[in-house]
């Protein structure tokens, strides 16, 4: 019903438009073409002149209105070390392009008004101007060189992998349809081997339990990181492409099946500190959920979030994980509470645990095992 009305309205509107069009043509033939043309040109050129300030003011005002929501502005200084460098390149580029934007748009619409058609005038025959053209080729070239150099210096620093032997914490994020799975290395600081063929409901990463580095790895449901510590995220994918995206840290990298990628960054602002920053801005005093007046304000509810930024199927928009940046002590306390996946899910289960038979006989043979190991050791030494 509504649809019929809408269609009818459109049809009527169409007829009206056609009639208006016709009338304008008729009026034109009565008044004479020249007259119509002159008038048309003068109206349109005035509109050009009117559009220019409205357009520019609209651009600037809307930008100011949304400023405090945008990363790199207001409270949203980068929460990672490298992000500061990236933000500063953004700002430089913004200033440079902003100037060009204003000058060219102004010239464009101003000329369209200024040089509007007049039968009595002639245009100037200007076909080219070598000096001018050299100048306006050289200026963009130099500007670009400046931006490129700044950009590439930062880029190569940000994307550099950790140096060999550098003390760095490594965690893994694996994208799958439709969630991020997380893995921490546990006490040994090493992520164990994986095999995509070993993935199952009980072994979501396909960890190879024969690799003992796996035994203490745990799978938290949030990323928790100590502030000020460099972290290397190993980014992997189980099924299709995903993208590991934490906007507040300026971190983004595709997750590719069969080809681990990485991103190295150092969080510099704890979640709590970020909330305090947001608190300074009235925008963040609104309710997080407008329908729930008792609920938290936006700044109170704030959390860093991990998202997916590469189309991966129908649930692409829902791969949320919370990222918490905390002080060192809090981090250690959190670590305490985590259980290794092996211990909680695999250990002692027949068919899952390759050490199963070993674990049954373990008690009785514990002494034996230690003995043989000791023997082996001394053998090694004697060689």
């Amino acid at each position, binding site marked *: 019903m509504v*649809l019929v009305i809408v269609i009818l309205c459109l049809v009527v509107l*169409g007829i009206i*438009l056609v009639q208006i069009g016709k009338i*304008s043509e008729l009026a034109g033939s009565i008044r004479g073409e020249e007259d119509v*043309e002159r008038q048309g*040109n003068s109206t349109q050129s005035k509109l*050009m002149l009117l*559009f220019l300030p409205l357009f520019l003011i609209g651009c600037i005002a809307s930008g100011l209105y949304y400023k405090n*929501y945008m990363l790199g*502005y207001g409270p949203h200084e980068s929460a990672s070390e490298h992000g500061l460098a*990236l933000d500063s*390149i953004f700002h430089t*580029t913004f200033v440079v*392009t902003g100037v060009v*934007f204003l000058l060219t*748009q102004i010239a*464009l*619409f101003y*000329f369209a008004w200024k*040089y*509007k*058609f007049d039968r009595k*005038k*002639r*245009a*100037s*025959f*200007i*076909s*080219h*101007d070598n000096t001018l*053209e050299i100048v306006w*080729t050289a200026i963009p070239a130099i500007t*670009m060189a400046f931006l490129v150099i*700044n950009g*590439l210096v930062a*880029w190569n620093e940000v994307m*550099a992998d950790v140096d060999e032997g550098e003390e760095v914490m490594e965690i893994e994020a694996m994208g799958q349809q439709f969630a991020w799975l997380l893995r921490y290395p546990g006490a040994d600081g090493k992520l164990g081997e994986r095999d*995509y*063929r070993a993935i*199952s*409901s009980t072994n979501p990463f*396909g960890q190879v339990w024969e690799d003992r580095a796996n035994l203490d790895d745990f799978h938290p449901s949030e990323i928790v990181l100590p502030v000020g510590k460099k972290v290397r995220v190993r980014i992997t994918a189980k*099924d*299709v*492409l995903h*993208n590991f*995206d934490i*906007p507040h840290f300026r971190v983004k*990298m595709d997750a*590719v*099946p069969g*080809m681990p990628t990485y991103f190295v960054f150092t969080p510099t602002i704890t979640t709590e500190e970020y909330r305090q920053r947001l608190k300074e801005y009235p925008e963040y005093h609104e309710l*997080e959920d407008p329908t729930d007046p008792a609920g938290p304000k936006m700044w109170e509810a704030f959390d860093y*979030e991990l*998202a997916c930024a590469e189309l991966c*199927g*129908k649930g*692409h*928009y829902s791969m949320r994980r919370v990222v918490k940046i905390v002080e060192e002590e809090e981090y250690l306390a959190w670590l305490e509470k985590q259980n290794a996946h092996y211990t909680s899910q695999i250990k002692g289960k027949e068919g899952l645990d390759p050490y199963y038979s070993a674990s049954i006989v373990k008690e009785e043979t514990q002494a034996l095992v230690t003995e043989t190991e000791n023997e082996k050791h001394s053998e090694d030494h004697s060689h």
Partner: protein
Amino acid sequence: MTELTSNATEEKLVQELGYDDHFHEHHDGDKFQSNFITTYVFSLDHKVIARQFLITGIFWAFIAGLMSLVFRLQLGFPEEDMAWLRPFLGKWVTLSEEGVGAISPEFYYAMVTMHGTILVFFVLTAGLSGTFSNLLIPLQLGARDMASPLLNMLSYWFFFLGGLIMFLSLFLSTGPFSGGWTAYPPLSILPQASSGSGAGMTMWSLSLVMFVVSVLLGGINYISTILNLRTKGMTLWRMPLTIWTFFITAIVGLLSFPVLASAVFLVFFDRSLGTSFFLNEINIGGEALAQSGGSPILFQHLFWFLGHPEVYIIILPAMGMVSEVLSVNSRKPIFGYKAMVFSVVAIAFLSFIVWAHHMFMSGVNPFISNFFVVFTLIIAVPSAVKVFNWIATLYKGNVRLNAASMFSIGFVSMFISGGLTGIFLGNSAIDIQMHDTYFVVAHFHIVMGVAAFFGMFAGIYHWYPKMFGRHMNKLLGNIHFWGTMISAYAVFWPMHYLGIAGVPRRYYSFDVFQTFDHFDDMNKFITIAAFAVFLFQLVFVLNFFYSIWFGKKQTKKNPYGATTLEWTTPIEAIHGNWPGKIPTVQRWAYDYSKDGTDYLPQHLPKQDFESDEVH
């Protein structure tokens, strides 16, 4: 001086100086124009084929525009009841227990994918360059038709076939392809990963292969026509910029589209023949795939080796037409003709060595990105030169503001806005934050989507008389221009802010994340503006079709006082374009307001009063 450019003198010039190829003494071609089918359906005449491309393009633009309304509804009004869409969309609108309808995510992604594919390939490649290359190459060069009218006809029908296949895929029960217009594997290969990657992807691939065939047939034709069939005196450096851009576009298309075809074939092999070009260590649906050892990134290289040149295939013809329309309506030569040609050539060349700027965050070696950053930002230089030249063309001109010239001015404005954001994205350091956000969506819609449409509109309004012997209504044209200009900026400008706030593109819903969920008002605003854009396009469609039959008749052969040869052909279009001899060319295409004249047409020999001018 007026007698120089009166209809009678121009006619006399063609007769006196024209070149007689005895075309009309041979009548073997006439049988191809003898009945309705051969005249309007399987026509060999470039002017008819041009109109076929245009009307098919308008059809596809309408479909793709409707699709964008559907997914904008979801983004702007996610809470509204969409049950009223059920009669059209059927099961793709799911009903909750209370009977509240919602657009399903699968369908949302299918719409986004179809929208992108259709607009990029069917509308802005075929509809734009297919229409105007066909219409203008023979007319502006002084040729009777294309080098091979048969291939030309086939080019249209392969395009039609590709479109038909894509259209039919919309009705598949598993849905059309839904993995994005870029079709990245493994998503596009594995039906387990997405229902659209089943039959939908098969038909998508088939459709694109047909399309590539169409582009190649068209391209070969454009190139050979331009190289071989120029009339006497039409040296390369006398060609209008339109022809230059069609020429370069065709070369770029010829070199890049086969690579898309090869990528699609490899995807097909992976899907159907068990190869693993793009599959590696995949575990999906609780099962490890036997196919392994390939690289999904390889596909991205192949895709963007076409994909980046493709965006220039779209924009270059628009640039050419805008140059021409601006020059005619400013009554001034285009500023820096040679610089314009050189920058088009430079852009075309560079467009082949920047593709990996779409892949900075895809896991390619970050060192490699250094080269792509450098080449990408070099492209900004010829682009800037073109902008300066257009603005300088207006300077001290005598500018007639009609729909065509205003759309050209709008084009320049859009190209500036969108080109400048390219400078952010091309700098890989900034792209870390911006990649796959709404900032990219804003960038390419403004610089390519809207700008190319504006170029196309400029072309349609300007050359409408050459297509239909009538004029489009001026008032409706002006309404169309201002409405579109304002509402298109209203749609795409705010998207920059979303992108800088970190909101990713291709999200069905923003309410899962706090970070992305603060923009309900803006999303509503954008959706409303998108509806406005669509309504203003209906004004255009109305004007277009109404004017075919009822528009104001073209009375003057050369209504705009333009220098180029298409305006020497009779108002009533004929087979072979010129009734008698073909005009010969005596000068470049931009002698406007020279030495006190209004314009000196290309077929007018040098006059005594003229000064020597080096361009």
